[in-house]
């Protein structure tokens, strides 16, 4: 059974989850919003509250969207016997990606804000 359109979409979305977790955890440099001034800047000015989260989510979402489109093309070429295996690997991969990203982010926040 070759993957049909539904299965291709799900496989591609799983790739999207993996890529989102990776980009989000890596946290590439992006513009920061300064709420007191209502402006966006690329630099991080110490002492003035700013927010990098919007750009971080935007980067990760863009990467996930690209992974989804490329994943859909790749999934259509998946050989027939591999669909059940791919489904199981997706379950494992998505779980591990979310767990690894959460653990890394928790450690990062702990060492930044809590650790002496």
């Amino acid at each position, binding site marked *: *059974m070759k993957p049909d359109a*539904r*299965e291709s*979409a*799900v496989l591609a*979305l*799983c790739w*999207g*989850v993996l890529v*989102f*977790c990776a980009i*989000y955890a890596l946290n590439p440099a992006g513009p920061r*919003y300064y*709420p*007191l001034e*209502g402006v966006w800047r690329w630099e991080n000015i110490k002492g003035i*509250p700013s*927010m990098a*989260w*919007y750009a*971080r*989510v935007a980067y*990760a*979402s863009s990467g*996930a969207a690209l992974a989804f489109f490329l994943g859909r093309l790749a999934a259509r070429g998946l050989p027939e016997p591999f*669909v*059940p295996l791919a*489904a*199981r690997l*997706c*379950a*494992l991969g*998505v*779980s591990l990606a*979310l767990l690894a*990203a*959460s653990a890394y*982010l*928790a450690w990062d*926040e*702990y060492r*930044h*804000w*809590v650790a002496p």
Partner: protein
Amino acid sequence: MIILEPCAKPLLFLHLVSAVVCLAASVHLALRLIQRLRARRVSMRSVRLHAKIVASAYLLSFVLGALVYPTFRVRVRHDYFDPELPWATAMFEMKEHCAALGLVPSLLLLVIALRFDFGVPRDRVWLPLFCAVLGAVTLILCYNACAGWYLSSLRSV
């Protein structure tokens, strides 16, 4: 003046309501699925309904939280948490990370629920993935709800 500060409290209230709806639907979906699988019959009707509620409430809660964030960042985090309770800042940062990580999985949950029928043998291969994603989204919602409610009790917008 911080953007949307005048309506921060109503936005926060709506954020709370949508989060509660999302968490309740997620737990209900998990319990329904376990019940049905034990009885060896799966009705996709209630699974699809709850998956739609989870996905739409998650997105709504996410957007509302993003709108309240500028006010929170200054009036709560900068003015109180960062200097006095840095562990609370860490807890909040983890909440926003979890919310972001759960975005695509909540969409994945919806797509699987809408496009597959676990009563059909071919589609059952996707059940482990559905359960894994549902478990992850539910855990994220549990943490975010508890952290959000506790942090709001310390100081709110």
